[in-house]
């Protein structure tokens, strides 16, 4: 059990945390979501076929858990005290250097259906085929969301849209 936990943590924790943070925008909730994902995995909820499937399952489950938390009545009545939304990008520790925090901030402000494909495509370097598998959507849908999401990012950057969207 400990061996399995160690493997999961080493292999996926950082990436899943980034994905959870891109949805939750605060550290504590992101960590909770990742932990819940691992718990579901350990309980054997995942019918894993191979490593790629395992990865896709973990990402998909993390996103679903985040969305469930965001939709919950409890969450919607609370306000995070530990981090301000404007510094969200600073809390995503990518394994490479990016020079443009503003664009990442804009991506994090997108509605969920644009944010997840864009974040996975650009910041986690997944292909459209992989994202379609992870999000259980058609490749054409992902392409459309990437294109429309990009237009939204441009709008946010030019208009300085500060409205927080779940």
């Amino acid at each position, binding site marked *: 059990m400990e061996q399995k936990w160690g493997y999961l943590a080493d292999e996926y924790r950082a990436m899943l945390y980034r994905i959870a943070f891109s949805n939750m925008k605060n550290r504590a909730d992101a960590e909770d979501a990742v932990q819940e994902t691992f718990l579901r995995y350990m309980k054997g909820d995942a019918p894993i076929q191979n490593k790629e499937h395992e990865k896709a399952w973990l990402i998909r489950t993390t996103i679903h858990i985040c969305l469930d938390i965001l939709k919950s009545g409890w969450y919607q009545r609370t306000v995070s005290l530990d981090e301000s939304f404007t510094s969200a990008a600073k809390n995503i520790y990518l394994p490479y250097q990016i020079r443009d925090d503003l664009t990442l901030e*804009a991506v994090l402000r997108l509605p969920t259906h644009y944010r997840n494909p864009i974040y996975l495509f650009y910041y986690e*370097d997944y292909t459209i*085929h992989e994202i379609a598998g992870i999000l259980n959507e058609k490749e054409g849908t992902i392409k459309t969301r990437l294109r429309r999401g990009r237009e939204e990012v441009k709008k946010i950057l030019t208009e300085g849209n500060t409205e927080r969207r779940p």
Partner: protein
Amino acid sequence: MSIQEVQGAKEAPAYQKKKKTGGGEGFQESLLQNLRSRENEEETTADSAQGGKRTKEPSETARIGVTGSVRVNAAMLTEAVQTVKVRHMRYEESDHVEIAVTEGYTLKGKRLDDAEDAVREQHEDMTDVSEYNAAEGQNRSRVYVEAKYEDGRVEAYQVDVGRVSDNTDHMIERFALETVREA
């Protein structure tokens, strides 16, 4: 990956007309047929692609499951920029990354250090130091650049930075120069 493999760009295999078959078995048979013919084509074009001379467009092998051909943007090719086989390099492996969300592409760059090792191995018995330095220097100035576009295309280039002007406005050349500075 050695420099020989990078230079060994292979032709994007032509679409093979599938045999009309019915049911799941037929599909599998047709798939195997296509794979076999693709392998044959790769073998026959391998020799012509050796020696760094780009004769044909490369093929792309997708990371998971599927294989797709790549439409190479001819406008990207210059004297210094050649298309090569896509490695599917990860961000973590890259020396330099550019994420252009508003433009719809990402770029990953890596100096071809493994190519230097290959040169060392090939020229172990080389006594002429200047010849060795020239060979090594030539490889040191090469950068592998992988571009991924919003429409799903993935293209890979090898850039001979020695031939790139410092004030180039060519996207791939400029990025290769930045990669050398970052590495």
